[in-house]
């Protein structure tokens, strides 16, 4: 009986997964068709920030009433976010950050981030997040952290025995908490929110983490002032996909259109070097 119950839940789960993927692709296709036909008619509302599918964001009209600015303006050709009317829309405080007592310490007093949790497909399938399935009963907690072939989540990790991160030295449960799947976990077993991936990535990628804290690596928008100004920081997973870093470090992006050619010029073949 219990077994049957479990099976039915998994089936429902898988079906809903397909449904969501299907809806997503349908939406992308219709948006592309619309762009090609009516380029100037209306603004693009479904946009992405760094790469497609990593950080989607939708346009709010009149987000800054003083000037009638929308929250964002997006490219009509690619759907990428080009311009921020309100750089802090939908942000939350970055949260407590560990202090590093040297000159590389970051200033996080006025740091805000966009939460990552709303962008996680499986996290948003049920009311309890990942615990909807990973409650210890429907899917029992694993006894050890040994790599094994997963029967789920192939959309995230195609072949779990060939996880494209750490070249064989890293397994899912080195970063995901085995007992609370709604959280990440560092090497000491501290639970870390999905909204603060920098705290776990930085444990191995220390050099990049120090650069990120200093404001050199990564992206910060809003105020330029190093003290006092409110700044929106990008966190690691807004640009990097930790599950595919080895094979597919970054998805290529479609560039925005080139400038118009100087008057009277038919093509830009004069730019080609003779060695090509």
């Amino acid at each position: 009986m219990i077994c049957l119950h479990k099976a039915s839940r998994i089936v429902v789960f898988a079906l809903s997964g397909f449904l969501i993927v299907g809806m997503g692709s349908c939406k992308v296709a219709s948006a592309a068709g619309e762009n090609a036909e009516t380029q100037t008619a209306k603004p693009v509302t479904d946009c992405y920030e760094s790469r497609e599918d990593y950080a989607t964001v939708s346009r709010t009209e009149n987000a800054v009433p003083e000037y009638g600015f929308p929250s964002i303006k997006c490219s009509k050709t690619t759907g990428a976010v080009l311009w921020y009317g309100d750089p802090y829309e939908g942000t939350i405080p970055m949260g407590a950050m560990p202090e590093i007592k040297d000159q590389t310490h970051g200033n996080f007093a006025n740091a805000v981030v966009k939460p990552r949790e709303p962008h996680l497909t499986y996290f948003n399938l049920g009311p309890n997040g990942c615990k909807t399935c990973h409650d210890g009963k429907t899917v029992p907690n694993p006894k050890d952290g040994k790599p094994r072939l997963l029967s789920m989540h192939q959309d995230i990790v195609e072949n779990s025995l060939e996880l494209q991160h750490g070249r064989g030295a890293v397994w899912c449960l080195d970063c995901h908490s085995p007992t609370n799947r709604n959280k990440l976990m560092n090497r000491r077993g501290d639970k870390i929110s999905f909204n603060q991936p920098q705290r776990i990535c930085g444990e191995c990628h220390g050099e990049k983490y120090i650069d990120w804290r200093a404001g050199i690596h990564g992206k910060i928008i809003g105020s330029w002032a190093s003290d006092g100004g409110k700044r929106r920081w990008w966190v690691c997973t807004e640009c990097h996909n930790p599950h595919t870093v080895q094979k597919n470090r970054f998805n290529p992006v479609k560039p925005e259109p080139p400038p118009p050619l100087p008057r009277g010029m038919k093509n830009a073949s004069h730019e080609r070097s003779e060695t090509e």
Partner: protein
Amino acid sequence: MSEENNTNPEESADLDNSRRDFLRYVCTSSAAALVVASESSAAAVVEEANSADAEVTVAEFFQGHFVLMSDEEKKQAIARLEKRYSAQYGKKTTVSDVAAPDGVLFGYALDMSKCIGCRRCVHACAEENNQSRGESAIQWIQVMKIPKGNISFSAEELEKGYPEKSRFGDYGVQVGGNAYHPAGLTTEGAQSYYQDEAVPDKDFFYMPVQCQQCEKPPCVKACPVRATFRDHAGVVLIDYNWCIGCRMCQLACPYHARRFNWGEPNLPAEEMNPKTHYFGNRPRMKGVMEKCTFCVQRTREGRNPACLEACPVGARKFGNLLDPESDVRKVLATKRVFRFKEEFGTYPKFFYYIG
């Protein structure tokens, strides 16, 4: 030659007459206008002209250099512009003249190893700064796609070149073959009009170039009327109303950073950004020069430039060069930094670095 110079005496007399008439007309009309402008009741005349013709006002034509204006004159000039822009674009437009903050020297750093050539900065700049669109589009940032170069010289091409011979003998100077492979960081074969399906392209890197905000700007030296100048935060600005459109600054700039409005700019009202600054993104007119101002309307109020906010890879860093805690200073302290065309002695405050 001589025939061309020999004109009909009657015709030349006509020409003389017409020239004299023209000069007389110009003198009297401009004198009258000057009298009007210098009168205390100039404001009333301005109001009248404004209501008569929202396009260009007489007062705007005769206004002085903005930096040298009194506070009262500045207020009037800005009110004129706000009124004209609001009518022209059908939305409430503000023209700010907020001064640069004290104790600040603006600087920019760009990571060459991160840039992927997506051109989002270019189009973000246009969204922010009210450049001309469409056929006559003006873009303040130029992204160059540069081949990484063939570092591995091929043995097959060893025999393809030939030593250059002269009548004095063979000095072993190689022509063609391996000698003609660009290698390393070179702008040879750079493309600015590339149309790729996806970027970054293999074997290429990208270098965005915009106004370098030089400490010794050659454009400022070249301007015969001081319409372009360096403000105390280190940004080179233009008073569009004072610019005479001679384009000397464009010739002087070694970075191809300046753009000229050959015609009336084509700026659709719905794309116009109504938050403007006098020296920044207020809509320009025909026959004036424009260029990157580090988004003076944003940075003077504490916000980052638009190109930085659009960059999807975080290759752009902006901040106060006098503040050791700023992002730019930290880049300068820890990374390998170079200035573009350093040999010209322009001392840009736009730095390129390898992250």
